[in-house]
């Protein structure tokens, strides 16, 4: 079983989500909140830079040229 921790949200929001998820695939407010957070994290994490240097990029371009891709 997945380990879980408690976070707090306003009661009104809890009630709103609780009503919203009735009859959906979400078994609980926690599941709904976890999904929304993961969606948000995915958006934020997709905004990172490439992570490789100009020198590395130039070296790669040489190989791609040699292989006929560029």
């Amino acid at each position, binding site marked *: 079983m997945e380990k879980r921790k408690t976070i707090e949200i306003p009661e009104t929001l809890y009630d709103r989500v609780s009503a919203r998820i009735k009859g959906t695939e979400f078994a609980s407010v926690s599941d709904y909140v976890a999904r929304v957070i993961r969606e948000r994290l995915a958006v934020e*994490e*997709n905004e990172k830079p*490439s*992570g490789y240097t100009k020198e590395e990029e130039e070296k790669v371009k040489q190989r*791609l040229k040699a292989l006929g*891709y560029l």
Partner: protein
Amino acid sequence: MLPPHGGTLVDRILPAERQEQALEEASKLPQLHVSDDLAKDIENIAFGAFSPLEGFLCQSEYESVLHEKRLTNDLPWTLPIVLDASKEDLKNMKAGDTVAILDPLKEPVALLDVEEIFPYKKEELAQEVFGTTDPAHPGVAKTYAMKDCLVGGKISLIRMSFDEFQKYRLSPIETRVLFKEKGWRTIVGFQTRNIPHIGHEYVQKTALTFVDGLFINPVIGKKKSGDFKDEVILAAYEALLRHYYLRDRTVMAVLRTEMRYAGPREAIFHAIVRKNFGCTHFVVGRDHAGVGKYYPPYAAQEIFDEFPDLGIVPLPFKSFFYCRKCESVVNEKICPHDSTQRIDFSGTDLRAKLIKGEPPPKELVRPEVAEVLLRSKDPFVE
């Protein structure tokens, strides 16, 4: 460009100046022999195709992947990438050791920093990953044939291997630079283990209509009996690309890994790997990575609902067929005609025709592709 899974492209390749020294070290270290499949996956880990993995899973990661389909840092990850070892193999090694990994030719491939050695239950692994413990399932059979312990730890690749597919072997950093050079911002990845029929072409071109580039990424590695051989798949694709595709919109490179036939879980894994190669979208077809009747036809599409944070957009496609009435390739979502008008893209029928030396119908396979298949004396894996 979309960042790799976990944010950083893993690089576990030893720098050139360390390689000779590592080769020398390898001859003095305890040695672990691995299969060709595992040797390929070590390379995949090393050049970042399996980012964020830096080695083989340790126990807590293994259990998290098995039961939660996520790594312990919550990142989606559905297939346990593990290194199995026998009690005999483990006589000379313990946690904290560095060992040399040797390929089937007894050549040193990598160094492994052993972090953990742990037991596992094969039936549990099979049930969780393949949804069955039936030994007739090829993935289950392979699981049952694994050795009794798992060894977790980071690897360092000593040097890349060479094979006949060298010109098709691009690493994630290479595809990423290539896509950038081509000016592509959105790229759809297409996974295949088959020769291209017109249904595949239709899916690829439909997907390409909405993005900048198409990345065709055939899986090269051990397949099951009756599948097309790797060289036949690549030659067939070359013929198709030459005659029917815009070359500045399409790139083909291979992924050297085995098919696991893990259906839905493998579809997620395939998407993650293509994300690492720089794809923003990924085609998921009917019964993706399936075998026999072990998975519901669209289970591999439905599983994507569990992963809103995957970071790559799945493009689910229905099965395509040729409709005589429409006189085109269609699917059940767009064709109103009954099944008597359909010609299905049946792999079994195609195989039967090829075995008899007959060309497949042009509605199903392009003539240039058919020519490649008929020219091949022995196109199937035995």
